[in-house]
């Protein structure tokens, strides 16, 4: 009983450590820093505000008035036009599906691989670790034709499965790297106890380790989800059918060098970025908690 209560206690300790804030600044220093930080935030927010501003303008307002001017009246026509151009009822479901499944399976597989590597000090498993890490250095954009040929030979081109498997393949490197650094947060005592109780390696992983990796999974979700959501290259390589398109594929024509319909393009940007932003905002605290608890204890 007490052995199961232990991880909670350990996490509590980390939670309190998270509240480390320097309370040693005096008021004027704090004031200056507050103002400077606000300035920085405004600078960073300007492009985003511009996008939002443009997305509500009509094309004539865009061409003929100053870029800094606000639209005369909020014009939702761009959003409707973007919905249509992006074929949103198809592409949104597709992108969501690909992202969700890829991240879920990645979390499972990376956690499994990282845990197996962390619990096996033999050279083979350390070799696996380095092997996975090699992937970080491969710029898969330049391998595009080779990837396509491999995808074609395995019959995975133009299928949902194929794209998801490619996302997993390219996400393994970073995922394993991240998960390995979280392994120190999983107390060995719990695993030993499970072993003594007669759990197999699989049961230990799925029933004990995986639940404890929740902050790790939250971190991986945030860091990987938006990269898959925004991916263009892999999707363009594997998907040609209209039914399987992602949002980024549908957006392509809006961003070509000849593009003239900025306003729809800006509305499209907002639409495509909104879901991941919501995901981030809701998972924010788990992310920081997760990073605090273990990511950096590698």
């Amino acid at each position, binding site marked *: 009983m007490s052995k199961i209560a232990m991880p909670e206690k350990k996490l509590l300790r980390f939670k309190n450590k998270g509240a480390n804030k320097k309370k040693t600044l005096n008021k004027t220093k704090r004031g200056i820093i507050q103002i400077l930080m606000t300035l920085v935030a405004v600078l960073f927010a300007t492009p985003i505000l511009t996008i939002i501003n443009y997305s509500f303008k009509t094309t004539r307002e865009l061409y003929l008035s100053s870029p800094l001017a606000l639209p005369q009246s909020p014009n939702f026509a761009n959003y409707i036009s973007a919905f249509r151009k992006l074929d949103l009822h198809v592409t949104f479901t597709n992108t969501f599906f690909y992202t969700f499944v890829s991240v*879920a399976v990645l979390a499972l597989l990376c956690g499994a691989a990282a845990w197996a590597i962390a619990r096996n000090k033999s050279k083979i498993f350390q070799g696996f670790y380095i092997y996975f890490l090699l992937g970080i250095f491969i710029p898969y954009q330049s391998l595009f034709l080779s990837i396509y040929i491999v995808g074609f030979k395995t019959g995975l081109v133009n299928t949902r*499965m194929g794209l998801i498997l490619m996302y997993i393949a390219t996400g393994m490197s970073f995922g394993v790297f991240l998960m390995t650094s979280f392994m120190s947060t999983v107390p060995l005592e719990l695993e030993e106890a499970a072993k003594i109780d007669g759990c197999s390696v699989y049961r230990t992983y799925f029933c004990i380790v995986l639940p404890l990796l929740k902050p790790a999974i939250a971190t991986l979700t945030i860091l990987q989800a938006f990269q898959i959501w925004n991916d263009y290259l892999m999707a363009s390589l594997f998907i040609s059918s209209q039914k399987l398109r992602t949002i980024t594929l549908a957006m392509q024509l809006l961003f070509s060098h000849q*593009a003239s319909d900025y306003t729809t393009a800006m509305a499209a940007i907002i639409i495509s970025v909104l879901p991941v932003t919501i995901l981030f905002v809701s998972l924010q605290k788990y992310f920081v908690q997760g990073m605090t608890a273990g990511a950096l204890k590698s």
Partner: protein
Amino acid sequence: MKNVSKSFIFILLVVFLCSTTIFGAPQKTTVSILAGISTTDDGIQDIITAAVAKKYPEISLQWEIHEWSDNFHPRMQQYIQTGLPDIIIGKAQDVATYGGQGLLAGLNGKSYLDNILDAAVPGVTIDGEIYGMVYNCLYQGVYYNRKMFTENGLEVPATHAELADVIRKLRAQGITPFATHMVDTWSIGNVVMQFAINDVFAQTPDWGDRFRAGKVSFATSPEYKKCYEYMKLLYDNTWTRETFSLPQIDCDTRMVLGQAAMKVSGSWSIQNFLTIDEDYDFGIFPFPNQSGDAKLIFEPNMTFMKSATTKNSAAVDKVFAVITGDKEAAVEFYNLSRTASMLKGVSPTFPNPSQKDIDKYAAEGKLIDANLGNNQLQWGGFQDENAKDIASWLQEMITLDEALKAADSRRANSKP
């Protein structure tokens, strides 16, 4: 709880993965299309799908659309490895690139070819076999603000002396002579080719072949050097500080708002001009050449090609027959993209202020095919790389001689 949610997710995954096999089950004859288009052509898929559905409801079209200059060629490369789609929509120059490799089906003898203007045929014929069906064409030249010219007492220049005069008078009025957007390397490449068509290829139609045979070169050709120098003329008479940073639509906006008088461009700009101001009155004239006899350039543009390995040959023929036969659909497309027709007896109905100039040059027989140049020198890997060197030269990073020599160094890549 945890077990329930886990198995729920698992079942969900299984259901989703199974559903991949259900999708894609063929119902009617499906004809696959790979289209490389420009942004101005967006909407072609709806027009053609509707036209085909009306006449042949048993044929369903599966579209894959890409931007011609960025994504179309990589896709072609991929499909060449694995099997081209039934129909390929590209530009007329793609016939030269892909037809020579045995990838396209010959269309000789098909009845629907009779609907196409004769002028469109030579550019898509290789060794007597026609490989493409040209649907529309663009005009390329110098678009000018008619009102501005009249107000300032300017005449359309036919020689360089006259052009210099026009530039001088515009500058005296504080008007930027040329509108440019050199941030788009393709624009530099296109403009230089326009110059070359009237200064090099009109006199020596096989200049490209001679170039590859080593008989002529960029470094030793005074004509091509002149073309590069015209580019400098534009650069010195435009918004020099902004041009490498100004997207096309902003350039066109400035022109419509009266900040510039001329733009060396093509029909693709018409859509922008008229969207910004539907009453904008513009004309077109060919950029003067050294001999003062420059002709207006027309470019056979959207071209339909059939894959040599298609399994739906009869269906493709039906689709092609609809495309060339449905005049309403054609007019709808020409109006949408503001381009000119390549079908016999069909003309667009959108108000085109430059139409009277086009008709004038056509009546005088002063039209010249852009593919005279584009079929001699490959765009991708040659013309576009040369354009980058020109940009580097204009930015004073290399000399003119170095830019010309760099073009020569790419000799091997110049064959379309």
